């Protein structure tokens, strides 16, 4: 490991004083391997929401980076996560994406595991293994740490990792704006999954920092959403390119968040058709105010954020998604729509339609984002010279500071404070440093 680390010269991959990132970080297989070892094996990774597996035996299969895991509800109400792998010859234990099962039988030779990973038996235990196989030693690999934050389930491969609450730090205040606005909490619609030919970092970084792209990238979507007869880019109906807003970066933990605060106070009802706006703007808003306070209710509707390393959320579009690495050059996007559990069915229905129209894989806005990041990836990874290029992450460098209302290191909305925080923590972890 030491050699590869030296060969990579991690210190040169990101220059945090000057805001410069090397293009090769998006495609170098050695960087990717090191990310798997030092970031995805040590960080808290999003697994799902408690509401997806309410009953004993309910399970969902997801991935922690590329590792398939089974997340299960146990009889005592706790949640476990195990590697989806048989300890005999490595076969997948479960092929379904979700379901209810208290045990998993390997389809090759029939080893049977309970949903917490314990090996409970196998064919020919007596005549084949002579009762000598110590089943306690041969359970499925368990994710040693599973913790829950307001219904969101996270797992961590590092048994010594600090608690989830410490890893979230100040970002929890922003995250809770998505989770805590209504009694009974949220539920997730999905997962909707799609693939993009790009490195996982493009969109993870982007969601923690980039309001800069919106007016240009999404110009045609914004124009198309204008009412008939409106001038081509009046943005009246949708978004005006506000000059105010904030961006939050947390270099010690890698998180970032941004939004057109406080001007964009209608963001909470942005993309959903009737009857959602009346509901969200009416009684739901008053409940939210009581629970979250004025700032998170009235001023932060356009919040977009990344919880390091690969969980991102968008409040106006009401989505939560995970950027699952699939090798250096591909990402599987696992996308959920966020609903409040107590919402009337017709409001949920309207939100699902609105978000899928705007931000699901084929959504009006998502089309241009996907294409741009895929082209960024090609631009930064195809060509020997192209891979050496220093890329610019300097927006607002040196202009960050504290703010009375918002926790963290705050900058103007048009800044790359979040991106620099993301790459700072990324680099610290690659160097084997702070968790």
């Amino acid at each position, binding site marked *: 490991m030491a050699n590869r680390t030296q060969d990579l010269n991690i210190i040169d991959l990101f220059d945090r004083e000057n805001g410069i990132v090397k293009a090769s970080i998006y495609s170098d297989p050695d960087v990717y391997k090191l990310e798997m070892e030092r970031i995805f094996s040590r960080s808290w990774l999003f697994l799902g929401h408690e509401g997806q597996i309410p009953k004993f035996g309910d399970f969902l299969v997801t991935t922690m980076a590329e590792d398939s895991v089974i997340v299960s509800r146990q009889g005592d109400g706790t949640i476990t996560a195990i590697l989806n792998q048989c300890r005999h010859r490595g076969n997948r234990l479960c*092929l*379904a*994406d*979700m*379901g209810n099962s208290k045990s998993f039988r390997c389809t090759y030779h029939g080893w049977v595991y309970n949903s917490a990973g314990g090996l409970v038996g196998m064919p020919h235990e007596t005549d084949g293994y002579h009762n000598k196989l110590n089943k306690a030693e041969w359970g499925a690999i368990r994710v040693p740490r599973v913790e829950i934050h307001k219904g969101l389930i996270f797992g961590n491969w590092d048994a010594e990792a600090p608690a989830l609450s410490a890893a979230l730090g100040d970002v929890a205040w922003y995250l809770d704006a998505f989770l805590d606005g209504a009694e009974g909490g949220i539920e997730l*619609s*999905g*997962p*909707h*999954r*799609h*693939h*993009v*030919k790009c490195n996982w970092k493009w969109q993870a970084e982007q969601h923690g920092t980039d309001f800069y792209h919106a007016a240009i*990238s999404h*110009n*045609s*979507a914004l*124009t*198309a*959403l204008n009412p008939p007869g409106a001038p081509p880019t009046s943005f009246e109906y949708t978004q005006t390119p506000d000059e105010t807003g904030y961006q939050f970066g947390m270099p010690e933990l890698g998180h970032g968040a941004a939004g057109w605060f406080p001007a964009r106070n209608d963001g909470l009802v942005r993309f959903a058709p009737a009857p959602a706006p009346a509901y969200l703007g009416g009684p739901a808003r008053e409940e939210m105010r009581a629970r979250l306070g004025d700032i998170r209710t009235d001023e932060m509707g356009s919040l977009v954020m990344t919880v390091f390393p690969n969980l991102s959320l968008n409040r106006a579009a009401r989505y939560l998604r995970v950027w699952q690495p699939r090798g250096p050059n591909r990402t*599987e996007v696992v996308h959920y*729509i966020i609903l409040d559990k107590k919402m009337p*069915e017709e409001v*949920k*229905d309207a939100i*699902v*339609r609105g978000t*899928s*129209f705007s931000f*699901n*894989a*084929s*959504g*009006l806005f*998502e*089309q*241009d984002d*996907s*294409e*741009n990041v*895929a082209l960024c990836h090609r631009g930064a990874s195809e060509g020997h010279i192209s891979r050496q290029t220093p890329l610019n992450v300097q927006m607002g460098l040196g202009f960050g500071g504290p703010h009375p209302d918002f926790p963290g290191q705050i900058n103007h909305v048009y800044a790359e404070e979040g991106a620099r925080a993301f790459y700072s923590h990324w680099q610290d972890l690659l160097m084997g440093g702070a968790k």
Partner: protein
Amino acid sequence: MDTRTNDALRLQWSIEQFLYEETGLLEERRFAEWLALTTDDIVYAMPVRTTRTLRDFDKRFLPIERAGHFREDKQTLSIRVKKLADPKSWSENPPSVPRIFVTNVRVRETEIDDEFLVISSFMFTRTRMEQSYAPITGRREDILRRAETPYGFMLARRMIYIDHAALPGSGINTLI
């Protein structure tokens, strides 16, 4: 040939011609003309497929009112078509080349006269610059309504059941 068989053949033929023509409009990016072939109450949706065991096989598509890759009506389809015509629609300028193969066309009568359930299989490919995206395959379940259009029908519903648990090729930027 008796009249019944003759009628069935004519219906099958005319519905297939409709599918080829409307799909041709999509391939040729004549989206506004395609939109004119959809009814005002059009439902155009792609549910999410999940991988399930045989026991849960009938739950393999998530309920469309609770999840879906998209679920459009006339208004949102019109907005999509408007966007596709905008030179600032970066994902489609320069335009990609959509190719849609439609086959295995089965026609079923419905309870409503002049409305037919039409089931077909498709493959959708998208090529842009020198790259082809991974093909998307699946089944269309359409409702066609007889109407005074150049092709004799209008599209009143299109449910697109794809074969993939994860949508390849970063989704569909045109129409399918």
